[in-house]
């Protein structure tokens, strides 16, 4: 069987000592940033991007993906014990998780969160392994017109599912696309927007952009909120859930896994959306919704399973189509580019060991995370007492050296600061950086495919609607946009992002 054969290949790659080591490092760093409020996985990935330059591609990507799903485990710990979301995708876990902790059931909540995440991770891993090959088969047939339409759909999806003002998000995409064009035009060799600076002739590096916009801005805004975390820790208590808790939790884990796996694949989807949707859904199907908010175990089990499943399945569009669906995946594209890998359907054919190695490592990482999280939970909790005033200079220094080490270019360090400034301006004006990052990554690709498609069609724009695949993708994009205008959906969207 093909699937079995592929998974065996994957495990052969993932289970080499070297790759296990980096899977563990990723899972540990992920747990760390998950536990600590104020540093998210996107910022961490952006900050650690330069270090992956020195690793072989498989180890680099295994480590980075470990950080993303590892953060989903760690985030629940802080949410349950301290009532602070360690991670935005654990926001809803606070509601019932902390309430459980107040009743002395923190241990059970933590255990259900970790085991639910593990179950979700296992299912999501299988889901990726099964869904990816056919999807990449389809994608291999794509011409430039189909690719262009796919990117339109991806960008619109990301915008619709993002929180905040839709028009501003769309405009941020345009701005990202524009800045993505900086550098030498591949067709004509013209230098665009380079101001005659040699550092810019290859385009603005993704590392300065990602680190500045997603990492530094986060540090500055954290400092401005002056987080004096009054860490009032709850007692963990017995880890074992009672029979009653177990009976209530497992269907919620199943539902959360299903919702998370599906929502992760959507453009704009991922851990955050998955956890909110799963919590809202639990409340809908519960026989007694009033229990939610006062320590319903389903309110922990479902979103925690969903965010882990969503974190993992959001790799599907990246690995099969080469289209990042959320900013974390955009950073993964950056990592692949640093390694000289062009993300897309070809990766599975030309580098099966990379593709299946990453997938198999996800299961290995999930297994490691259960061990890291449950017995060792005390260590992680103690980390919360490290004050931010000692932590953030260390992060800043890591950023400086990281950017510099890539090209030994002080100018790029300066560029990072510049984008940190822009990021702060965007934050102050309520403009989200995520659509910008996606636009920036897709900008050159989109222009290239648009040009090629129109060249092949002799300048006839009908080429985008005459191909059935391209037409279907554009219709889906238009439908998504139309959906947002419907008042009922608008309300749900606003509610979903307010609080489960």
């Amino acid at each position, binding site marked *: 069987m093909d699937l079995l054969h592929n998974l065996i290949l994957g495990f052969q790659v993932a289970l080499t000592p070297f790759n296990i080591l980096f899977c563990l490092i990723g899972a540990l760093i992920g747990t760390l940033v998950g536990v600590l409020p104020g540093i998210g996985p996107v910022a961490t990935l952006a900050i650690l991007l330069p270090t992956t330059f020195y690793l072989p591609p498989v180890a680099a990507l295994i480590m980075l993906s470990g950080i993303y799903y590892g953060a989903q485990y760690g985030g629940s710990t802080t949410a349950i014990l301290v009532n602070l979301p360690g991670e935005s995708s654990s926001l809803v876990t606070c509601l019932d998780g902390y309430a459980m902790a107040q009743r002395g059931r923190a241990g059970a909540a933590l255990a259900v969160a970790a085991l639910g995440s593990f179950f979700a991770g296992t299912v999501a891993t299988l889901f990726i392994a099964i869904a990816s090959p056919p999807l990449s088969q389809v994608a291999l047939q794509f011409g430039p017109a189909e690719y262009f339409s796919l990117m339109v759909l991806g960008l619109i999806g990301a915008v619709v599912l993002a929180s905040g003002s839709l*028009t501003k998000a769309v405009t941020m995409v*345009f*701005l990202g*696309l524009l800045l993505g064009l900086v550098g030498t*035009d591949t067709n004509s060799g013209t230098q*665009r927007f380079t101001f005659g600076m040699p550092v810019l002739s290859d385009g603005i590096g993704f590392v300065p952009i990602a680190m500045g916009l997603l990492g530094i801005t986060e540090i500055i805004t954290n400092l401005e909120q002056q987080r004096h975390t009054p860490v009032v820790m709850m007692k963990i208590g017995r880890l074992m859930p009672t029979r009653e808790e177990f009976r209530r939790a497992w269907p919620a884990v199943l539902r959360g896994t299903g919702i998370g796996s599906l929502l992760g694949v959507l453009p704009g989807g991922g851990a955050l959306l998955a956890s909110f949707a799963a919590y809202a859904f639990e409340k809908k199907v519960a026989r007694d919704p009033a229990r939610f908010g006062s320590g319903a175990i389903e309110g922990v089990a479902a979103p925690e399973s969903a965010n882990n499943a969503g974190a993992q399945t959001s790799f599907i569009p990246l690995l099969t189509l080469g289209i990042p669906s959320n900013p974390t995946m955009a950073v993964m594209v950056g990592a692949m580019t640093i390694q000289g890998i062009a993300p897309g359907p070809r990766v599975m054919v030309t580098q099966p060991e990379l593709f299946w190695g990453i997938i198999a490592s996800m299961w290995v990482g999930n297994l490691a995370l259960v061990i890291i999280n449950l017995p060792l939970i005390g260590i992680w909790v103690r980390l919360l007492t490290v004050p931010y005033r000692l932590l953030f200079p260390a992060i800043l*220094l890591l950023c400086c050296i990281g950017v510099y080490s890539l090209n030994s270019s*002080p100018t790029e*360090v300066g560029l990072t600061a510049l984008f940190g400034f822009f990021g702060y301006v965007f934050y102050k004006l*309520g403009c989200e950086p995520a659509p910008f990052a996606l636009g920036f990554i897709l900008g050159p690709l989109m222009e290239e495919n648009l040009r090629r498609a129109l060249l092949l069609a002799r300048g006839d724009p009908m080429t985008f609607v005459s191909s059935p695949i391209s037409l279907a993708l554009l219709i889906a994009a238009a439908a998504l946009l139309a959906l947002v205008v419907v008042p009922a959906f608008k309300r749900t969207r606003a509610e979903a992002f307010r609080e489960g």
Partner: protein
Amino acid sequence: MQRGIRLHINKDVVAGLMFMAWGVAGLWLARTYPVGTAMRMGPGYFPNVLGWLLLVFGLGIAVRGALTEGEKLTAWYWRPLAMVLLSFIVFAALIDRAGLASAAAAATIVGAYGGPEFRWREVPLLAVGLTAGAIALFSYALGLPMQIWP
């Protein structure tokens, strides 16, 4: 009673103006790039389209913002912003001239000054510790070719 339209200044108005500024800058910088035709696009085609889109959407956002209450602008916190950015600039200025040791120490101290509290006894220790750690990790363990001392 006063009649007529009341204009507001809020996040959307400023955001719209910012987008328009980016659009104008893009169009102005791209004015010399050949646009070409839809079939054979020149290097100026896509930038021009995006420049106009930014301009039009920015205008729309600003106008709509001015007509509605919207979200109020919030105060800027200059100290963390300036110090964090300055720590990068200090690092960039020193790294090639003075080496990793002084660049790292200076960046740490400047950055720490942006924090909510700056403890005079703690920060030098932190700077020395982080610098030593950075040299050990990046220069010795990872073997990056970086000059350490001036």
